[in-house]
């Protein structure tokens, strides 16, 4: 448990350090150090959980079990690799004159602020604090979306702020209803603790919980980017600095889904019906299909991949909604591989748009000739995210499909259609960017592609053969969520 406290303290220290110290040339490297130490702390935490099982802190305010511990490690890992990418990237943006020292100082401070909010969402045992941290994540990132201060970025940030703020207010109403149901059976101060709620789930009033879940799903669903609440997501992802897009896509969306799944476990326990599951399946499938269609009509490379994020989050929501061991296992795995692949893609996209000097896909051409590393990175990343074997995304999508065929066979063609549409939508844009004629005067940029290589190698590894301990881990989490494990 000390590791969890340490984790929160490190990020908190990071906020203060960057806010107070001012921007220097090596600030980016110090940010890498902060995230590296966080990563070590999470690994320590994971080993503890692995040896001792679920950890509950003495005052019961923190809970780490097999479900959230892997997300904590994933969060720290992507936070770390993205910080490696962000250091030269932001330095380059400053050289271009887009940013000042003052704004970079805020950027690094809020980077840690965002990480703190994410760790708090994942480790807290209190559903109310989870909400507070989720809102905190919005507040930390909203000024980063408008970091460039262009009219577009300010508009995107305002939209993000208002839509997510109003959306997440619905989740607070849901949490209040949950608390209202909980105080009827137990003591006040502890009634919002997840561990207490979960053990007493069958005593909670099912009518109240059904209403509560609708609000919780809409609230956190806004953050997941579920259609029709997704409007803020492509704007925020495309107008902010690219490292932010990588962590928003790879982490924030996951953690919002995590909050929904935690609540679903409670609601299912109380209502003994599939009402929560059906809602998630409906919203998930709608997001999946709509986002796949929108992929075709994009002109901005970062918007393209944010729609792809909506599509994948829709698929995960659908799979979690379906429930059952196989679907849950697939959804957990998809969370991991999607985060890894998507943040790798955003890293290459960042470099590609620095290379071409624009985010407009019509003007990005001939990447593979100008700088083969970036071209190949983008191509392989897209192949992976589109769900080609042998990458991990294929495995998890295949498992989702298998589970669908098992439980709802008539939905399987719809899923296949969506995957096909998304594949076509991605490749019609990627093909000319990677292979097309190289514009004159396009020069290679300084790029650090190690994060991309590591992420894609991991995804490949998970596609070829899931490492035993990881499969075991997913299995345990599945047992926790769905009751039994498919392994």
């Amino acid at each position, binding site marked *: 448990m000390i590791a969890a406290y340490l984790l929160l303290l490190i990020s908190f220290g990071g906020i203060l350090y960057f806010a107070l110290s001012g921007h220097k040339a090596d600030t980016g490297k110090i940010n890498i150090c902060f995230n590296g130490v966080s990563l070590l702390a999470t690994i320590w935490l994971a080993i503890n959980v692995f040896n001792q099982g679920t950890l509950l802190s003495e005052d019961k*305010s923190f809970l780490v079990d097999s479900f959230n511990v892997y997300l904590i490690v994933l969060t720290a890992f992507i936070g770390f690799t993205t910080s490696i990418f962000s250091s030269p990237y932001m330095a380059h943006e400053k050289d271009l004159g887009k940013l000042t020292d003052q704004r970079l100082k805020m950027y690094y401070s809020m980077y840690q602020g965002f990480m703190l909010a994410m760790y708090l969402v994942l480790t807290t045992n*209190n559903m*109310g*604090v989870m*909400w*507070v*941290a989720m*809102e*905190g994540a919005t*507040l930390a990132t*909203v*000024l980063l979306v*408008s970091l460039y*201060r*262009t*009219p*577009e970025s*300010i*508009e*995107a*940030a*305002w*939209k993000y*702020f*208002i839509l997510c*703020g*109003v959306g997440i*207010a*619905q989740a*607070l*109403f849901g949490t*209040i*209803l949950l*608390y*209202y149901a909980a*105080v*009827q059976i137990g003591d*006040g*101060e*502890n*009634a*919002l603790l997840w561990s207490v709620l979960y053990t007493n789930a069958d005593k909670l*009033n099912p*009518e*109240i919980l*059904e*209403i509560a879940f609708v609000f919780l799903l809409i609230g956190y669903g806004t953050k997941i980017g579920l259609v029709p609440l997704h*409007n803020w997501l*492509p*704007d925020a992802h495309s*107008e902010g600095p690219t490292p932010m897009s990588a962590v928003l896509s790879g982490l924030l969306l996951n953690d919002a889904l995590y909050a929904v799944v935690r609540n679903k476990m409670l609601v299912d326990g109380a209502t003994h019906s599939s009402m929560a599951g059906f809602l998630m399946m409906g919203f998930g499938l709608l997001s999946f299909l709509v986002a796949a269609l*929108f992929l075709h*009509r*994009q*002109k*901005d490379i970062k*918007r393209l991949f944010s729609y792809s994020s909506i599509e994948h989050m829709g698929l995960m929501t659908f799979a979690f909604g379906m429930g059952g061991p196989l679907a849950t296992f697939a959804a957990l795995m998809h969370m991991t591989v999607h985060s890894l692949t998507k943040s790798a893609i955003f890293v290459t996209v960042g470099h590609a748009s620095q290379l071409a000097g624009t985010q407009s896909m019509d003007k990005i051409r001939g990447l593979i000739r100008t700088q083969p590393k970036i071209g190949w990175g983008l191509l392989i990343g897209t192949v992976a995210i589109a769900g080609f074997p042998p990458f991990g995304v294929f495995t998890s999508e295949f498992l989702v499909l298998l589970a669908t065929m098992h439980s709802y066979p008539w939905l399987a063609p719809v899923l296949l259609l969506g995957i096909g549409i998304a594949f076509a939508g991605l490749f019609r844009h990627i093909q000319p960017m990677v292979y097309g004629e190289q514009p004159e005067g396009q020069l290679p940029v300084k790029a650090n592609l190690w994060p991309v290589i590591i992420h894609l190698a991991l995804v490949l590894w998970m596609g070829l053969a899931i490492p035993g301990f990881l499969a075991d881990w997913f299995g345990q989490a599945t047992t926790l969520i769905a009751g039994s494990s498919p392994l």
Partner: protein
Amino acid sequence: MNIEQQDFYTQAILSMAALVGLTSFLMLGQGRLLRLIFVFALQGLLLTATTALAAYSLDNYHLYISAVLTLALKVIFIPIMLRRQVLAMNMHRDTEALKNNTAVMIGGASLMVFSYYVLHPIVQTSSVVMVNALAVSLSVVLLGMLLMISHRQAIAHVVGFMSIENGLFFAAIVATNGMPLVVELGVAFDVLVAAVLFGIFFFHIRTSIDSLDVDRLNRLHEVEK
């Protein structure tokens, strides 16, 4: 059940709920920003009174803390900040011509009915005051959204946003006698940070489009043309 048979506390809470709902409607039809902010502060004051009343009748010390927080944030800090923005922008003489005012009002009334409808399933298991309070707070949340839809000024949007928070807070106080202290402090912290960020944003939006009319924030489209 007749209202005269309830105890004094329940009657007072029900009146408060009615007044809070009324302030939401007042805000909805308000085209002048300064008056909008004033009604918002009034709603905050009603919330403070409700919280203090609950704290007194339940003898719960941490509700006093909530009451002080509400007073400081929703009655003093945020309204003053917004007021200064309006005066600085010299917008206090403008009246926003609200389109379809009648339709918006009827929409607001329907939302209130809708809130009661949504919470109908819990009538059997809850007392009258709970159902009423929850329904009123849900309708304050929904009316806040309607306020944001029907007004164009960024300041009105912030008022709508904060009034949504008010609705949630009212639900927490009345239905559950306040959330656990740590959650309440967290929410208050988030509201404070949000208010400060809104202040920063007004400045950015003003320098970017030279106005606070959010209809002019229209560069980004779902499908690019």
